[in-house]
């Protein structure tokens, strides 16, 4: 382990709605094994889960790259999807570009990004239309 950082990588599968959440679930397990405070684990899990779902339903899947430090966690969810044309609009509660099929499964309520903001200490979206999106979530321990 270089320095004091634990690096984790998870694949977010494409359109696998029934199994989505495995990456954040695995990360949660690791945080429990490290002994991170339960409320911080919850914040990181909920935030990552929302980003994971977004990558799955909007972007055809992606990768989760995580750096765990003793004092914080940096979660990057990276995809090569269509990107987010208007981030401010996307951040509005209730706004969603999810297809009907996806909404029928219970996703696409438009609360994902606001939920990330609620649970993360720092939250950044880097997106290029037509190329992809990188969501960075930081939770301090």
């Amino acid at each position: 382990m270089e320095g004091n950082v634990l690096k984790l990588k998870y694949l977010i599968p494409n359109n696998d709605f029934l199994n989505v959440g495995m990456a954040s679930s695995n990360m949660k397990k690791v945080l429990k094994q490290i002994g991170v405070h339960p409320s911080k684990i919850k914040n990181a899990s909920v935030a990552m889960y929302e980003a994971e779902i977004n990558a799955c339903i909007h972007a055809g899947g992606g990768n989760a790259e995580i750096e765990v430090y003793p004092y914080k966690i940096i979660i990057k969810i990276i995809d090569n999807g269509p990107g987010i044309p208007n981030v401010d609009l996307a951040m509005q509660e209730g706004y969603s570009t999810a297809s009907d099929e996806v909404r029928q499964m219970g996703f696409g309520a438009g609360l994902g990004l606001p939920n990330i903001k609620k649970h993360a200490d720092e939250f950044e979206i880097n997106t290029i239309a037509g190329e992809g999106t990188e969501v960075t979530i930081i939770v301090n321990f």
Partner: protein
Amino acid sequence: MGEYFHSVRLDESKCKGCTNCIKKCPTEAIRVRKSKARITDERCIDCGECIRVCPYHAKRAITDSIEEINEFKYKIAIPAPAIYPQFKNNFTREDILTAVKRLGFDEVLEVSMAADIVSLKTRELIDKGEYNKPLISSACPAVVALIKVMFPNLVDNILKFDPPFEIAATLARKTAVGKTGLKPEEIGVFFISPCAAKVTWVKSPVGKDKSQINGVLSITDLYLKILSNLHNNDKADKFDLSSFEGIRWANSGGEALSSGTENFLAVDGIANVIKIFEEIENDNIEGIDFVEALACPSGCIGGPLTVENVYTAKMRMKKIIADAKNIKNSQINIDLVGDITWGNSIEYKPIMKLDENMSVAMQKIEDMEVIFNGLPGLDCGACGSPTCHALAEDIVRGIANETDCIFKLRDKVRELAREMMDLEAKMPPVMDKEVDVKLEDKV
């Protein structure tokens, strides 16, 4: 009683060191060491899955024996409602309670009376709305223990009332003191239980220092005697009986139906409870006010210390509940019960932490991945750990070795065999006795 008391124990003479219990345990608390199953105290939640699954009947719950009631001047039995469907439907509730009384008790009080009290108090709480949603029932001690070790974020959701069997004991003792004039310690209250988790709770209570119950008897131990009494009894005694709602607690969903909200979720079977709790922890379940979670399949009627198969029991419960609807409820003297809220708080006991030092734990995670990638991934259990991942974890925790894995051992043997073959081919001239080679030819 020491830091951990667990009622689930192993009879070593029957244990074969097989893989059944280590794989079934929901908290991966069991390992096979020195050819016997060993339960890790910190991880055991006394759910009794290992008792259920052991094909050699090597796992059992320690309970008290009926003879112990004789240490008391006045003996009270408090049977769990799961006792009723153990017997055929031609026997009424009063028949069964009489048969229990004839075991040597002075009095019998149904635990379901206390269940009615908890339902009442729960409805008041839900009505006020002053609780963390969803509220999680504390009736199943195995589930409370599960939350303590695996679901720290749910500790504040637990309904902090004493379980019905404890409240019944308080009620029974206080009533008896009033009736007989005896001192409280001269009265023996014995709980007749369908499960191991409740035995553990009595010896090592959660939320209070000491239980009011003097001993726990298992339904299995008393079954034949009760059956015999049932066949001998001509006329049943009269008892104050609880409502049908109290008895219904023995079924999965029973407590939830009486909780005062329709937004409830009832889950039974420990593996299912774990799945649901993971969803709740992730805020993935919406709109639920109350969660009833029971470790045993179909609820307490499926407990490891019951006799009848759970589907027959479920069928019998239907009639028992239907008959109970015809009876006017007894008035319970709630004042006798006092405050049923937990006096002590519950701590989260994280079993998953690999090390007290976070940096060391982080290094162990990395080491674990490396080790895991070198294991065959068959989860065969031959090493004594339930899965390859568990073995990798045990290795970094320092309680197992890579060579415990028989596949890794076989690989090593093959490696060694190859080395041996190589060595064997290289004989020093002095020892080389190959017949066809003549000394002259070599020179």
